[in-house]
């Protein structure tokens, strides 16, 4: 394919156009604002589908056809450079899809609608920015700017403890990105001395490929490998976002307090930014260090899986339970990354996508239920049941819930299975013990979901639940794309695997050189 396309620019700035339009609309025209946001996100989604269609799955690395490169701050060799490859494409499509659904599920927001949708579209744009940037500086800017709308969206439209959650989320991620900043700046200064780069640069592609293996640092009189030191820094930065075990505690707070749509974006997209950071930055730039720390990453991933699952089992708040299940599922992604085999990596990227759809379903469903019941207790703090007999009361809702739940626990035929099977196949080749324990995590994963389902859905209908109405047309409408995605990609995953396998394979072969 010759020529050049500005499609990435369009996708990136389309939500920003939406922000402008929303801001120009009068505050009391709420309907118009909602429809503007919806139409805008649908256009963005359509553009991302066009991107998917035009994408050439045989090219490893960044696609020349879509590359966008303009000097931004030329004094420091910072460029506005965007690109797409097989790893970022599924994420872009996922983001644009989820944003459409989130706009629909935010229909019932009534508190300053204008500001909400403006911030939401702004958030969407920044997330695209993270997934598209090829310049580390640009990446960092988007990574940071993303926090601002998120902070307000949680802090203003959240639950009863929202300020705490928002501040916690902000500080946590900010801490991580500061570490990342250190790494970024260090790379910038070191890059000029590297013969194969030759100038100070933030260009991710130029930096990647394991060019900093021989450097060392002297800190407090101890020689430390440059790559290892800054890999750890970046690891923490990304790990907070994933979140990997010791840094996971922002997640339950943020997920529980955030409004439904924001929980969906948080779990569906933002967590993937962490693992995307590994795939795009940490692994390609420091392949040797990645291989060196693979064991540690695998163990951390394992802890995530088991710890998240065990904690989830004890939760009595549905949303918190699902938040912990996200911790557990992202652990699988970490395991796949740590495997550094073709199956594991592909499985990890696929799991990123699949977790995005299945967990989005779960959060949307909890949001639907919350709109009816205004609480989220499976078991209230005083020991009585919060829900009961929902199966009888809400039949359609229950069917969708079953699909989401089984997709989340990896039932074959639904999307979670293939990615998890690939991850396990990848990790088993390297770490047998870890695999066996992680599979136990899978078992617990089924346990807490089924137990929750049993407590909420079976049995006689509680008196409180008798007033709940079943899903309305709008809710069914925005659930249906996810249902279709979960089933179709469970049966036929090739549409996603085909676009990413070459890019992922490229990364795996890079890592294999240092193995």
């Amino acid at each position, binding site marked *: 394919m010759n020529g050049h396309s500005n499609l990435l620019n369009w996708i990136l700035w389309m939500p920003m156009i939406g922000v402008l339009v929303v801001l120009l609309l009068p505050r009391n025209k709420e309907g118009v604002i909602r429809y503007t946001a919806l139409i805008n996100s649908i256009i963005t989604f359509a553009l991302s589908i066009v991107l998917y269609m035009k994408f050439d799955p045989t090219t*490893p690395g960044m696609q020349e056809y879509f590359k966008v490169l303009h000097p931004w701050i030329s004094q420091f060799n910072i460029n506005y450079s965007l690109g797409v490859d097989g790893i970022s494409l599924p994420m872009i499509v996922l983001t644009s899809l989820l944003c459409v659904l989130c706009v629909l599920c935010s229909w019932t927001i009534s508190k300053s609608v204008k500001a909400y949708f403006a911030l939401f579209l702004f958030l969407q744009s920044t997330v695209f920015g993270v997934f598209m940037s090829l310049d580390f500086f640009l990446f960092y800017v988007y990574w940071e700017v993303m926090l601002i709308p998120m902070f307000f969206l949680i802090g203003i439209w959240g639950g009863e403890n929202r300020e705490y959650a928002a501040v*916690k989320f902000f500080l*946590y991620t900010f801490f991580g990105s500061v570490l990342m900043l250190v790494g970024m700046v260090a790379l910038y200064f070191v890059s000029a001395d590297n013969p194969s780069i030759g100038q100070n640069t933030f260009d991710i592609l130029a930096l990647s490929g394991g060019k900093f293996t021989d450097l060392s640092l002297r800190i407090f009189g101890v020689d430390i490998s440059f790559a290892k030191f800054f890999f750890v820094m970046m690891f923490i930065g990304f790990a907070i976002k994933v979140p990997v075990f010791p840094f996971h*505690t*922002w997640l*339950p707070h943020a997920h529980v307090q955030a409004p439904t749509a924001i929980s969906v974006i948080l779990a569906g997209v933002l967590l993937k930014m962490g693992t995307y950071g590994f795939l795009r930055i940490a692994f390609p730039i420091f392949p040797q260090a990645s291989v060196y720390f693979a064991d540690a990453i695998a163990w951390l991933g394992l802890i995530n899986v088991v*710890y998240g699952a*065990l*904690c989830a*089992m*004890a*939760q009595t708040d549905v949303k918190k339970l699902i938040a*912990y299940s996200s911790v557990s599922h992202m652990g699988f992604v970490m395991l796949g990354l740590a495997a550094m085999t*073709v*199956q594991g990596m*592909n499985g990890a990227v696929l799991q990123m996508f699949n977790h995005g759809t299945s967990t989005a379903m779960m959060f949307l469903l909890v949001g639907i239920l919350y709109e009816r019941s205004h609480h989220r207790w499976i078991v209230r703090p005083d020991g009585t049941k919060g829900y009961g*007999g929902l*199966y*009888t009361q809400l039949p359609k809702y229950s069917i969708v819930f*079953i699909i989401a739940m*089984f997709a989340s626990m990896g*039932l*074959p*035929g639904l999307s979670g*299975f*293939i990615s998890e*099977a*690939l991850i*396990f*196949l990848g990790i*088993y*080749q390297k770490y*047998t*013990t870890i*695999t*066996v324990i992680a*599979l*136990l995590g*899978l*078992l617990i994963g*089924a*346990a807490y979901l*089924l*137990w929750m*389902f*049993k407590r909420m*859905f*079976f*049995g*006689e209908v509680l008196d409180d639940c008798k007033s709940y109405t079943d899903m309305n047309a709008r809710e069914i409408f925005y659930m249906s794309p996810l249902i279709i995605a979960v089933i179709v990609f469970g049966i*036929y*995953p*090739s549409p996603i*695997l085909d676009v990413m*396998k070459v890019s*992922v*394979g*490229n990364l*795996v*072969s890079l890592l294999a050189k240092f193995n």
Partner: protein
Amino acid sequence: MEYTLGSILPIVLGPFLAFAVNVFLVKRWTKLGVFLSCFGMFVSLFYSFRIFKDFVFGKYSTDYYVHKVFTWFDLKAAGISDFAVDMGIYLDNMSAVMLFMVAGCAFLIHIFSTYYMAEDKRFGRFFVYLSLFTTGMLGLVLSDNLLSVFIFWELMGFCSYSLIGFYYEKEGAGNASMKAFMTTRIGDVFFLVGILAIWTTVGSVRFTDIYAAISSGAFDGLTAVGIPLATFAAFSIFMGTIGKSAQFPLQVWLPDAMWGPTPCSALIHAATMVAAGVYLSLRMYPLMELGGITTFIAYIGAITAFGAATIALVQTDIKAVLAYSTISQLGYMVLGIGVGAYNAAFMHLITHAVFKACLFLSAGSVIHSLHDHHTHAHVQEMPRMGGLRKKMPLTFLAMLCCTFAIAGFPLFSGFVSKDRILGDALVMASHSKAYWIPAFLGFTAALLTAFYMFRMMFLTFFGEPRDKDLYDHTHVEKLSWNRNVPLLILTVFTLGAWYSGNFFGAWVKVPGVEHKEWFATLIEKPHVEKFKAYKSLPFGSVDTGADRVFEESHYDPDHGMSKEEAHHVHLIHNIGAWASIVIALSGWFIAFMMYSKRSWNPGRWVNTFSGWYRALQNKYYFDDLYVKGVLQRGLLPFNNLLARFDMGVYDKYAIDGWEAVNRFFYRIARWVDNVIVDSIGVDGTGASVRFFNVILRTFQNGKIQFYFIVFLFVMVGYIWKLV
């Protein structure tokens, strides 16, 4: 016979399309949906019968098979990986027989369900699940690799979950369905480990590739987590069997699975899904042998057979008796695998599927007829039945035949298959002391089986009605075709003649009668060496398997044995067969004396062995151990502790604690500040302190004009420097 896509795929696609369409019909066009399900099943039955016919009556060698593959998805990237996940269809004699059995049973049960479930408010939904389940089971049988077995396996697990929880208004159904899914999933997880181990070692999970790998020694010398890899993989896969086929120690879910509607118990929890576990072990038999876990398997099977049979002795719920007898019979199959009775184990799988399906359907008709007018519930308790044979003669006939079959009476199918297993167990016991216990348990269990089955018969159909009110309200059975036809057909197939050319079973040779058992001729252990030069065909191509021309079967019970050895085996088999007959009869006799003639009082036994009785009633306390012990005392408190630690300790102190640390540092800084400033003040430099103080205070006086002056002077100074 050449097989193309069109002649195999309808088997799976029939029920699957019925399911897919049915999902949308379930609310409005229930009747149409039900019809579609049955029709899909019929299509499936038709095609599987064609295959069955070709394989059984066609002139194929015993190791003829059809194998077609297609790529499901791949991770191929030039020069980096050529990993691809292939799916395929594998047909050999075993799967042909299995296919016919599954399709047949499923079809009949579909028909029966149109009678049984007709008044249920979720009539349509039941058929949706049933169609999906049948898809899964048929897909499993057609699978050529472990991964697709696993996929269909889990799919069936999901259907089983949904059907057990079919009456979701009841709390107990929820518990039972969760228990069933979770318990089987324990096995599934191990199964997945086994798949991973094999996939990593062999590079493929196709049965044929695994056989080839076994024969070429790919597993030799490898270990995993400290034990030989073959043992590890075999054990893991066998754990899948334990979970799915409800073997000890994961047997606890199957009795609870009776919460589901009776036809679903018949199909899923008796005939097909639970048998899939055994089917898997049979498929992977070479690996089990290589891993050296056959003794272990034999013990598990024997313990299960015996233990479940003992529990069945004290059950009063008619479905519970059948559930435990299912576990017990599955134990027999596993025992058969353990003692190397490959053929017999598979045969028992088939015969058991037929007679157990029939038993459940009969029990279903009994339950359906007994309607308590006070509680508006169907009655399942045997103590409230009795004398029903007059009111429902057809059901009585069907159930009697099945009871003869399961108890192992001659002329019936159970005798043919079960006694072969017991005979082989005895042969093994004669070779190795380790097998004495399985063999002994097997025979004891046979006695118990005969006893509790006849106990059930006597309590249900004979004697005087014990609940007169209930009996009077019971209608004389209606001759509705969709109830009777399935029962009759299944009853006919409980006869042993269908499975053996010899009414007395395989091993009793009547002089002059030719050895004609199709079953024994067809089903053979996979000879792994034959798969070395094996090639699978791509999906689109026409099968050329017929080129592997007819080859006289070398199957012969005496094949490869010395004369003395063969004689010994025959002798033992004969002993086993006669012993079985005696045992079955004595089981009948005890039951007759206790429950029909009432000469022996069962209450005496209960009093004598009251401790055992309680243990049996509590199912050997396994449920208590798992639910109360492991879950309520172990896992859940631990989880709560962990979650509380996560939010209450780790998050509160380790994370939010940073705030306190910050404040602490701030305090230190302030303290240092104070101390240093103060001490300098004390040391006589107070003037300077005051000076700075004054300056600072003056600068911070909040007076705009002052700020302005300061600003002005600074600026002036700057300009002065500049000019």
